[in-house]
């Protein structure tokens, strides 16, 4: 129906629209980022020991990412379903896979910013130290994990959007699916941080797992998004 070029343009338009809305409302900066930071502080209260914090910092960073992601996804789809914008796009005959890619891109940008903040918090609050190679590995981990998370998040967020009780449904659907990302990203970040004596080289196989996950859900998501949100 639509050529590749058209689809690309729609995807970028959707992504730009989402990021503009975000930029104007500043929800991410004013509400989600403080929420993520307070999670990190609360973890420190719960695990009241500096040695432990340093050891489990990678897992905590990713848990905080997952929890904040739920808030961000609900926000991006609340924007769509509030005035029936998703329906309007669909009635206009816009390719759903382009909408999926666009929304995933916008989510990727927001998630990546959030993760950078969380890693920074871990460095400052939990006393994590990284080598230069470790830092590079951490960035690659963040990027691959973010692609996977954003694709899955957009897919299931679209399903839960516009339904009664979506606030409670989204975590139930999403958290089991992202378990592989939590496992892979935590191990890769452990290698990057050197927590528990892990070597930087141990991280790369886990990044491969993250990449496989990202590719699978990017492809499947662009196919399945249409039928899932189509009412």
């Amino acid at each position: 129906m639509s050529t590749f070029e058209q689809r690309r343009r729609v995807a970028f338009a959707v992504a730009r629209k989402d990021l503009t809305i975000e930029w104007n409302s500043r929800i991410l900066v004013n509400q989600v980022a403080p929420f993520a930071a307070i999670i990190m502080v609360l973890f420190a209260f719960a695990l009241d020991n500096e040695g432990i914090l340093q050891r489990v910092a990678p897992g905590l960073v990713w848990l905080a990412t997952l929890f904040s992601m739920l808030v961000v996804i609900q926000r991006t789809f609340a924007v769509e379903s509030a005035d029936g914008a998703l329906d309007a796009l669909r009635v206009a005959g816009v390719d759903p896979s382009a909408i999926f890619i666009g929304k995933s891109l916008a989510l990727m940008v927001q998630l990546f910013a959030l993760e950078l903040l969380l890693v920074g918090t871990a460095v400052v609050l939990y006393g994590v130290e990284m080598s230069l190679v470790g830092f590079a590995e951490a960035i690659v981990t963040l990027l691959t994990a973010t692609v996977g998370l954003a694709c899955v998040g957009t897919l299931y967020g679209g399903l839960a959007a516009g339904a009664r009780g979506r606030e409670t449904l989204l975590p139930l659907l999403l958290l089991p699916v992202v378990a592989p990302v939590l496992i892979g990203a935590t191990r890769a970040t452990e290698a990057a941080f050197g927590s528990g004596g892990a070597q930087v080289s141990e991280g790369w196989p886990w990044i491969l797992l993250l990449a496989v996950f990202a590719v699978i859900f990017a492809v499947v998501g662009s196919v399945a998004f249409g039928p899932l949100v189509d009412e």
Partner: protein
Amino acid sequence: MNSAVASPRGTGTRNTRILGILTIASMAFLALLGLVFSAEDRDQGSSVRIMYVHVPSIWVAYIAFGMTAACSAIYLSSRNRSLIWDRFAGAAGEIGVLFVAVSLVTGSLWGRLSWGTYWVWDARLTSTAFLFITYLGYLAVRRLGGTHRQRARRSAVLALLAILEIPLVHFSVRLWRSLHQEATVATGGTDVHMDGLMLFSLFFGLISFTLLFLWLVIHRQRSLALEDAMENRGLDAAIEARREEAVS
């Protein structure tokens, strides 16, 4: 009972009644086999008796989830998109959730006797727990509302996504476990020596639970069909009421 036969009411027919009687009889025989006749296992002791209900339950759960996926695929690919496939998928999903829950609980009771602990972070156990949560989500999506066609398509796509997700989760949990070589107890089950009667009891359990599954899924599909029909009727009545309002 007699009046029910005279004017057929409910979701039963003559065939399902025969199936039901067969199921009850084989369940009773399974209880005798498992609790009385079969011997204790050399390694597991009497705790092997839990296996006669635990293994068939997880077996039924696998059949049920397989059926959910197959019926969802048939629904999406068939030209007329008959809702009967959607209802079979939903009925099987519901039964699968029930049996996975039963097998998780009986399994942890068995684990307590054999391993001394209710739970180990073994890959198979962990993925089974994920299976349970995933299909709870599937059932929740079925209850989201909207038209029956919306429900059918949404849940069918979700069921196919679950088929993709489960191997991924299982694979990554196995990778995760391979780094933490603490829980190898689960492989202890492979060197269990089984005599003929034990093997027969286990096999008989699989057959009788399969009969049970068939009986349940047929009845549940029919009661789901009635639920859909009643909802349609409520919708028709509402439209009729609106029309009368408009006329007057």
